């Protein structure tokens, strides 16, 4: 089964960190991220993983009466914002949960797991 793992975190808190501290925290968590990339790539060599630019860099696109209307993002006004996505073929939901719990963001944010639909 293919699953998407959606990484939600409080981006405002992250952006509020002094640059040096953000850099330090990122460097500190990199070995754990790399370990997850390694595990997922072993489970599915065709996996996809992307970190998104901050929510404020997003543009919201709607088409109204044939006209494209673009507003500044983010779309979802929730405390936690989508910050990254993994998509991989995994053996089952338990495996997806195990991997999700290894993601550093799960310690302060939320990992949402969704099977892929039929699009």
């Amino acid at each position, binding site marked *: 089964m293919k699953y998407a793992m959606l990484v939600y975190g409080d981006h405002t808190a992250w952006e509020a960190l002094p640059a040096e501290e953000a850099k330090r925290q990122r460097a500190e968590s990199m070995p754990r*991220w790399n370990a997850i990339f390694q595990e997922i790539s072993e489970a599915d060599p065709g996996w996809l993983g992307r970190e998104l630019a901050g929510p404020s860099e*997003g543009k919201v696109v709607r088409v109204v009466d044939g006209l494209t209307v673009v507003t500044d*993002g983010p779309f979802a006004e929730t405390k936690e914002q989508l910050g990254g996505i993994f998509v991989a073929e995994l053996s089952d939901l338990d495996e997806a949960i195990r991997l999700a719990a290894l993601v550093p963001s799960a310690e302060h944010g*939320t990992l949402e797991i969704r099977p892929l639909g039929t699009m």
Partner: protein
Amino acid sequence: MEFIALVYDDPAGWERMTEAEQASAMEGYMAVSQEAAAAGVLVSGAGLAPTSAATSVRVRSGEALVTDGPYAEVKESLGGYYLFSCETMDEAIAWAARIPSAAHGGAVEVRPVHVGEETAA
């Protein structure tokens, strides 16, 4: 440069559509995939199962907390994504505007993919 188009929809709105409207929308999603692929712009894309099939995982004080359902109950939820490789945000926006949800009461959020020396995936 890569941009992700996050497709937000109200599932109740989908249920209210007629079968013909749903079929037409599905064709629209497929058409974006096919045309973006033909243009060499599509990196990846997928639809997600509804939020009723979601599982949320949080780790607090070293304990994994697993709950059924999405991370937040919202009217319009993430229903799928397209990952585009484009030169500019404007180009990505033009592709996003062709996704049926943009015209059907939903919205498409276009976000650049983070690039930096730390990006490992």
